[in-house]
């Protein structure tokens, strides 16, 4: 694997390989807090044109745990403010010896451009591009689901039914999961109000929950990406599509995921987020292991020729 741009590109074998490596790493992370020398002498740049807490920190920590040198670049406070474009920034970073660029950008396809336009020879990891893809998020969701269902390493999510709920339209998390989870054998359905999830068969979350999903993935309502009012009000959204206490109690065995940051009281209630079936914190923990697995796979071996 040379780049990680999209979960569309992952076949079942590679996806399970990444999950298995990540699951071993998450065990090692519990046993020992030492660093691994795997990426000694490699330079990893986190190139973030959009705000982020967990993704950037977890990529940074993952690279540091593998002994890489890490440079954090965020668009604010850089030459981007003076008008430097993505190509020039990438080439500048490569000239300084970056082996991998971890890219978050508000434009869909930014990572693909960097990887395929010959601007840089660094490996590219997509950490979220616009409304398109966020592959490591889907991988950490899959790992959390596999652990939550007590499925062994080496296996997929065969036969599990997973509901993705909410702002499908703006969600790169949804798109990444809609590609990855079926590759792993799960049955996935995206639901939400018509303005978010065109063609949804259900009028509200109660109807959708009657299909008895094994897990629900609640998506954040992304107000920063809405340039027109798509929901009448927060209260109404929560009444029809929020994962409230009453709804959680109706599906007592259903696992709950949320990619974070959560809008508590809007798409997810505090009761749901903190219930025993919630995987929210294990998702964050698995994020570190998955990103270590991805970096070691991309940088920790002989480069395959393009």
């Amino acid at each position: 694997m040379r780049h990680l741009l999209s979960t569309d590109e992952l076949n079942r074998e590679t996806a399970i390989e990444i999950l298995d490596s990540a699951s071993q790493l998450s065990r090692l992370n519990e046993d020992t807090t030492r660093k691994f020398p795997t990426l000694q002498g490699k330079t990893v740049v986190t190139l973030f044109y959009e705000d982020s807490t967990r993704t950037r920190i977890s990529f940074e920590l993952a690279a540091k745990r593998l002994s890489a040198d890490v440079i954090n670049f965020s668009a604010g406070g850089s030459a981007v403010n003076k008008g430097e474009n993505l190509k020039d920034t990438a080439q500048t970073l490569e000239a300084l010896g970056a082996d991998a660029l971890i890219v978050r950008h508000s434009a869909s396809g930014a990572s693909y451009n960097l990887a395929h336009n010959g601007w840089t020879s660094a490996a590219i990891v997509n950490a979220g591009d616009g409304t398109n893809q966020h592959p490591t998020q889907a991988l950490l969701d899959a790992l959390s689901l596999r652990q939550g269902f007590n499925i062994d390493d080496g296996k997929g999510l065969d036969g599990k039914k997973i509901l993705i709920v909410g702002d499908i339209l703006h969600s790169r998390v949804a798109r990444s999961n809609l590609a990855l989870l079926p590759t792993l054998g799960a049955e996935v359905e995206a639901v939400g109000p018509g303005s978010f999830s065109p063609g949804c068969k259900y009028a509200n979350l109660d109807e959708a929950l009657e299909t008895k999903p094994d897990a629900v993935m609640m998506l954040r309502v992304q107000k920063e990406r809405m340039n027109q009012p798509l929901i009448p009000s927060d209260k109404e959204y929560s009444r029809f599509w929020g994962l409230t206490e009453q709804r959680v109690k109706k599906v007592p065995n259903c696992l709950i995921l949320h990619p974070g940051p959560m809008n508590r009281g809007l798409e997810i209630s505090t009761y749901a987020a903190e219930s025993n079936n919630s995987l929210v914190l294990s998702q964050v923990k698995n994020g570190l292991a998955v990103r270590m697995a991805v970096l070691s796979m991309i940088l920790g071996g002989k480069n395959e020729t393009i």
Partner: protein
Amino acid sequence: MKTVLSESDIARTIRRMAHEILERNSGPFLLLGIPTRGVSIAKALAEAIESISADTCEVGQVDVGLFRDDRDTRKAKPIAETVIPGSVDGRTIILVDDVLFSGRTIRAALDALSSFGRPAMVQLAVLVDRGHRELPIRADYVGKNLPTSLSEKVRVKTMADDSEDSVVIE
């Protein structure tokens, strides 16, 4: 393809190595295999030691992929499981691998072990030593010394991984 050790040869060799281990040490033993084939051989050695002595053996495994120094020349491999029963501190550890070649795997294994603690002593047991060392590393217990040329491939097959016990040169 030439078979160098058959199933019965391997069984005899393992028994002999178990005797050698017992001559130099007293139990309880901690054997750590290097995935994949090293683990099966560690289990076989543990079984042999327990059948000819009253000592008990614990068997674990240590993956060395993250500690290799030659990753740039090899394709990245998935990370295998590391299981260390108890702590390595102050114990005598017998590392077990199928083939000793350049010595780089063992160097990485020593690094991996030291990240888990400080063993009192580390010894090395290998089923086949094929020569061509790139580092000053040697095995304490060798099943068979097998002079090879660099173009040849030595394959150890085990019941658990390949449904037969044999060593072949290709």
